[in-house]
């Protein structure tokens, strides 16, 4: 019985994946609800509203696989969103967007310098950097929302292409790109080795510092990219969006199965983790659950999934 279960690849994925069973439970559960959950409009909307978090997660996954983490993404998200609007009158829309992304890459570079080169604690350093950037964002906007004056700007995130929302398409492209990066390039493989064991990777002649550093740079870049997309989606730059974002995204990545210990997990897992969160939001909205209870339930789900997972791990260890 146990053997046949184990040899089935589908069951294998289910037991390794903590987010997927949860998604399945929600999908099945919603079959019995009298809501508009199963409509193309709603499902697409769910993807659309998860997209920003998904994009953030792709970058964060690189740092977590390498044995770090990135909590500065919330700060980068808002500052880049504000920059991409504030710089528009000065230099035009596209250069402003480019500047915002370069800004994210730069912050990632600084994070990488401190965490990888100077060997500091990633959790604290990036958390501090996120706080610092939140302050910058508030200073830049005086804590008021900042609308864009160019109407085309809004269309980047809100437009559609053959009926599909642009955001969903962009997310899908970034998903494929980053999954491929992690799996089929030396850079990706080296990240896994570094996260698996830093010293072993070093002794194998891998350029550990440059590789891990680059992970932080890319994470900063994707966060900035997500920031301008968010501003475009809302047609506003504001300092308040990023508050919990960094924590939620890092949590989602871990719930998906990318361990903080490094070396295991990947982009598809992170996508599932964040999708589970997105779906939970959607389901709770459908069921008219109030926002305080929503936060409560979300926290409970994170705790439950991670607990159940280590429970399963423990069972597996003791079975051997």
């Amino acid at each position, binding site marked *: 019985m146990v053997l046949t279960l184990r040899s089935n690849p589908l069951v294998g994925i289910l037991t390794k994946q903590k987010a997927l069973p949860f998604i399945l439970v929600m999908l099945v559960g919603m079959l019995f609800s009298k809501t508009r959950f199963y409509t193309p409009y709603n499902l697409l909307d769910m993807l659309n509203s998860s997209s920003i978090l998904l994009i953030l997660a792709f970058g964060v996954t690189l740092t977590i696989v390498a044995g770090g983490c990135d909590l500065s993404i919330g700060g980068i998200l808002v500052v880049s969103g504000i920059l991409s609007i504030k710089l528009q009158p000065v230099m035009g829309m596209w250069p402003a967007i480019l500047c915002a992304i370069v800004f994210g890459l730069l912050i990632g570079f600084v994070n990488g310098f401190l965490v990888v080169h100077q060997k500091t604690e990633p959790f604290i350093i990036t958390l501090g950097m996120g706080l610092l950037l939140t302050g910058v964002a508030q200073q830049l906007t005086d804590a008021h929302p900042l609308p864009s004056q160019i109407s085309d700007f809004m269309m980047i995130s809100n437009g559609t292409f053959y009926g599909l929302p642009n955001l969903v398409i962009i997310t899908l492209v970034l998903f494929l790109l980053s999954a491929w990066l992690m799996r*089929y*390039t*030396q*850079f990706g*493989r*080296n990240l*896994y*080795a570094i996260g*698996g*064991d830093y*010293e*072993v*990777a*070093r*002794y*194998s*002649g*891998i*350029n550990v510092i440059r590789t891990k550093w680059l992970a932080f740079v890319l994470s900063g870049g994707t966060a900035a990219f997500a920031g301008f997309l968010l501003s475009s989606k809302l047609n506003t730059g504001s300092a308040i969006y990023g508050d919990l974002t960094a924590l939620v995204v890092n949590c989602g990545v871990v719930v998906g199965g990318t361990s903080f210990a490094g*070396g*295991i997990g990947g982009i598809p897992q992170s996508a599932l983790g964040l999708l589970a969160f997105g779906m939970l939001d959607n389901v709770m909205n459908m069921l008219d659950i109030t926002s305080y209870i929503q936060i409560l339930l979300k926290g409970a789900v994170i705790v439950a999934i991670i607990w159940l997972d280590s429970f399963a791990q423990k069972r597996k260890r003791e*079975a*051997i």
Partner: protein
Amino acid sequence: MSASSDSELIISIRDVSKTFPGVRALDKVSIDVRKGSVHGIVGENGAGKSTLMKILSGVYQKDSGTIVFDGEQIEGTTPQQSMKRGLAIIYQELNLVSTMSVGENIFLGRFKEMKGMRGSHAKARELLDSIDCKVDTHKLVSQLSVSLKQMVEIAKALSFKSKLIIMDEPSSSLTAEEMAELTKIIRQLREQGISIIYISHKLDEIFEFCDTVTVMRDGHAIDTRPTLEFTRNDMITKMVGRAIENEYPPRPAKVGGTLMEVRSITTRKLKDVSFTLREGEILGFVGLVGAGRTEIVRAVFGADKARGHSVFIGGKRVPIRNPRDAKRAGFGLIPEDRKLQGLILPFSVETNISMASMDNFSRFGFIRRSLEKGIGERQVKALSVKTPSVRVPVGNLSGGNQQKCIVGRWLEIAPKIFIMDEPTKGIDVGAKYEIYLLMKRIAEDGGAIILISSELPEVLNMSNRVLTIFEGRITGEFDPAVTAVDRIMASALGMKEVPA
């Protein structure tokens, strides 16, 4: 099996079996240990020694059989219960909290019984004094050497009034003097009437102080006899199940011209170290642990920063600032600690093997799957690594097979200079011989090897040339084929007057 009556036995193991999924780890094992004796258990990795010890301590539960400890039959015990009963086990990877003090570690979880910290420290002092250990009980464990940590473990075992202490390969990271110290303590414990089960790969130790020896192989207790009735070859034959003609293959025969020259490495621990390495040669480094053997190769490999050193390969100066430069220059490294620096244990055999050679199967940083696929299989086959598949985690393999995976990793990039730091540490006799053959093959294919090992016979029998190292300096160069061992040892101990 033995004639002694039950009251003379501290522990009597009868027909104990244990099966893990797919493996019969122990098959009706029976061993008796007499009170106040030192009982050695030898066997290759995977012979079942550790499983048996874990059953005794209560980490695992046996499937069948009986265990009588000090006249009392033991069923369904836990590690805590066996400790209290007087059965202590000192694992290879010591179980101490490194951020706490010596005294706190000895009485961990029992401060109340000891009437607080002060009582704990006082009692700890008493226990440490009883084994002639001078270490300050307020010192943090992280600041102690491995051998001192072992003393702390022994003191901890004594604090439970243990009647039987099991030591699982205690010597694997000890220097010769530390080993002598441990030997003394083992004898002292025996005199106090404490019985000891001593597990080791090193036959010298077994012959030095064990009263009785049990040889285990493939989950069976093959033979138990007084040590005096065994010969060395006898024991090795029983361990591997076949006769091994020699422990070492003949040295590589064809030594060519200079391959590498290292000039004046200086670091915090090394003073102006220079040496040459020839083609097809195995060069041995002999010295005490801490003399600087490992530091030399780490500096050459670029793992540590060194001042003013220069490495010449084939007459040309090669800058080596980090391991990556070293890899490019044609170096391969088998690091000192297989688990910490050599392998990513949860990763697959394949991934661990292909880690250093990614340049060979990728273009512009993009991996070409078709080229990557065969690597794992190829090396596993070429080195006859025993593994069910290349996809299993490398941590599931035995020590010898793990080591072969590291060798395979480097063979993929065909290094000219192989640095091997303790290549046979914790590996059983049969696998050792295979590693030796591999070394010989590498040398005969035109490569060169720098060999570091704490096992003197290994260095002396494998090397074409040995350098002795003492306090960060090279103190002598010898041809081990014609030099007496004590001359080499004297030089490694820094003695000026070398006995003739």
